[in-house]
């Protein structure tokens, strides 16, 4: 089973590793300590101290904060319980007019604003664009990934987390509350 130096994985992450070497890594059997090294690399790069439990995207992480598990941006902005779609706490740059869409898609590239809106979900802290969703108006935002952390750590990694959380999507609870406000 191959093992890679953390330094090489960092070069890979930065997109600077030669394609020939990346292909070798793809071809090789997978290194079993990757997740451990991956977390160490990312933990050293973020601006916060909370322990990363799982990276969600290239900017967002599920971290252990006290007894809670929350989503946090690498800039330090906190999005709340990982079982709530983090988009609910993002800034939405909405392109819902033809002019706004054609800033990105000019001329023959442009879709039609009545049919599709471009929702750019940005971090309120650092303004990084975290996801882009292009759906017709009225279609709910998708919660792309709700990881089953306790199964992952307990059953797959054999390193159970101290407390178990119910594996449930809690997004609708927040929305129901908003509707009452």
């Amino acid at each position, binding site marked *: 089973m191959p093992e890679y130096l953390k330094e090489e994985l960092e070069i*890979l*992450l930065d997109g600077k590793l030669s394609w020939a070497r*990346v292909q070798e*890594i*793809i071809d090789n059997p*997978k290194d*079993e300590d*990757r*997740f451990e090294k*991956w*977390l160490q690399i990312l933990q050293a790069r973020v601006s916060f101290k909370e322990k990363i439990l*799982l990276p969600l*995207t*290239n*900017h967002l992480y599920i971290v252990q904060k006290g007894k809670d598990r929350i989503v946090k941006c690498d800039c330090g902005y906190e999005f709340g319980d990982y079982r709530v779609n983090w*988009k*609910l706490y993002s*800034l*939405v*740059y*909405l392109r819902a007019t033809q002019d706004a869409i054609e*800033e*990105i898609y*000019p*001329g*023959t*590239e442009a*879709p*039609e604003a009545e*049919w*599709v809106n471009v929702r*750019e*979900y*940005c971090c*309120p802290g650092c*303004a*990084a*664009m*975290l*996801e*882009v*969703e*292009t*759906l*017709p*108006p009225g*279609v*709910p935002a*998708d919660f*792309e*990934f*709700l*990881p*089953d952390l306790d199964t*992952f750590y307990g059953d*797959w990694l054999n390193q159970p987390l101290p407390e178990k959380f119910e594996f449930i999507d809690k997004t*609708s609870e927040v*929305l*129901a509350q*908003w509707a009452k406000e």
Partner: protein
Amino acid sequence: MRSKVKTKMSLKEQLEENDRLFEETGYVFGLGELSRKEEDPTKYWTVKSILSGIMNNAWNLAIKVSTSPLAEAGDCMLMLLTPTGETICASHGIQAHMLCPTFAVRDLIMHDYEEDPGIEPGDIFECNYQKITGVHPPDIYDYIPIFHKDELVGWVAGVVHSLDVGGITATSLNMISPSIFGDGIIVPNEKVGVKGDFKKEYIRRVNALSRLPANYMADRRSNAAGCNLVASRVISDVIGKFGLDYYKDVTKEYIEDCRRTIQTRIRHQLVPGRMRIRECMDVPLKGQGIFPGQDRDFLIMIPLELDITKEGKFKWSLHGASAPLPFGGNSAPAMLKAVSSMPITMALAYDWFNHGALAVQDIETVPNSWSDPYADQPWASTSDSWETLVPTITWFCELWSRAQFSRGYIEEVMARFPAMILAEVEGTNPAGYYIHGAVGDLQTSGAGAHAVRDGDDCAMSLGGGRVDMLASESWELFYPFMYLGRRLAADHCGRGKYRGGIPGNPLYMFINTPTASWSLQHLGTHSKTLDNGGMYGAYPQPSFRINVVQGTKEVEAYIKLGKNIPTYRGDPRKPNETNMPAGSYQIGRTVPQAVPEPISSYGIIDYTSVGGSGFGDPIERDPELVKADLDNERSLPGTARSVYAVEAKYDQKRREWLIDYEATSKLRQKVKEKRKEGGIPFKEFWKEERQRVLKKDMIEPITTMLKESMELSPKYAQEFREFWVLPSDFKFA
């Protein structure tokens, strides 16, 4: 008639026993141990290599028997199956088909073909009926039994995408077909050959019902030749050398080994949990529809929920799928399951190619939606099933790429390659021969971006790993057009920190043909909407549009004078076709062109193939990558500024683009400020959008789609109402 099948159990009994064992033990064929592998691993892997060699060798023969350049470009495949139909291994070619023959053999067994019409050495069976299996009618499966002495020891199947199956239009995909009655020659699992050759009456049927019977039969003989070569070499080179018992045992073990490999890799490379994504795809048929219900602009919801289970399996659901389509874009459960095995295999079992991929997934389709239309619409057309199939299965790659990213295996991450597009032409070719069919530029798609680099340009074919667009001259000899250009379509990709691969931009000019027509068949592309592909902040690729120049006398004169003829699309604000004589061109027409449209000599069509999706925030893109794209004409200066926030100037003397880093840094800062100033908290967005939903203030195609999705899937209706916090009786009228 009794067949010569000699086994202790009937095939039906064997099949039922296999299903029971899998259900009870979780192991395919109940194989708790891989004893042949354990006793002699070298022999185990050697035989696997021999089988792979046999398949690929036969494939090389098969493509030479077919007369179709599509076969040469790789749109064919051979598969070796067990007696009960489980795929053991496959050749090069269009891997989407790898597991489809399984369902044909199962159907044959469950319908007692063993008794009637019997299964004999030399028989050829055929199926292209999507209720049973397969993707669409032109992908015709021919399969033959392998007999060792008097015992049926397996099957070999072949598939070739045929140019014409006699559908309602002169296209192979035949998208406008309203029902199975427009799909052409449908063979619902039939014995079409005996004693090693096709039956006379079968050939007469083909001659009567196909526009291109010679090509059609050459494809059948291509399948038969490939299958026969495989069968004879399995008997001589494997069973003859290693013994029948070993062959039977080891082929079953390969399948169970594949299942174990995939489940192990799921647990080692992914993260369990629930993943959700969707796209809403427009199919603008207003003005093109010719049968009832077709003459409108459709919006189709293609959702995917993927559960990666504790056991390391995929459980996927299409709840939210919208209504069946009154044209050929419907899928079906067997094809969804079989074809989804392709990305599973490509990503997680690339060293295997077999039935094991079917054993790791459970699928939930939606009855009476495009994903399973048959209950209410037994005659639904699937002539262009790729239209919904491609978007569905390509979501898989992006979803588990997200899990691989989380797990740290970033070298494996690849954003989506969301669709395909297929040009079909008709006319008289340079040899004076009437022809029609598909052109291989669909193979020039771009691959999805990786987490560590851009996607590969012009190097992706969804249907198979073997990409070959063939030389332009191959198509020019076969079809009534010449290429004016075949360049990379600048910026036609997902735009992100890493961009998707750029596809081809072919321009065909029709020449020397008394009549001609063209169409652009839909395989998941978007014109009025966007495909929603891309990871972590990348924009999806642009809308798909066609530019057409009519072959008028003015155009002919213009071309003969050698004036400024378009060879690529160029700037989307002012495409190169606008140089042509006034009134001759149409810019930005929507896709598809489902019904073949007549075109005269000197007429030109310009379209782009499909780009890969992007990865990451575009303003995090290394300016040096933007410069390289500008220098190589893979990106346009306007995009560099508006999407990537890069300030660059062209240096005439050095003949290259130069980046102004300071100005770029300021521009990127400005974009961030604009996001903060122009962005609204999600809660505010949600409240405004909710009011809009309550008022049903959307255009008709959107409300119709939502109505269909909610009516067909109570689960989706509940999710929709919960998201917008709507009354429990809320619905779209």
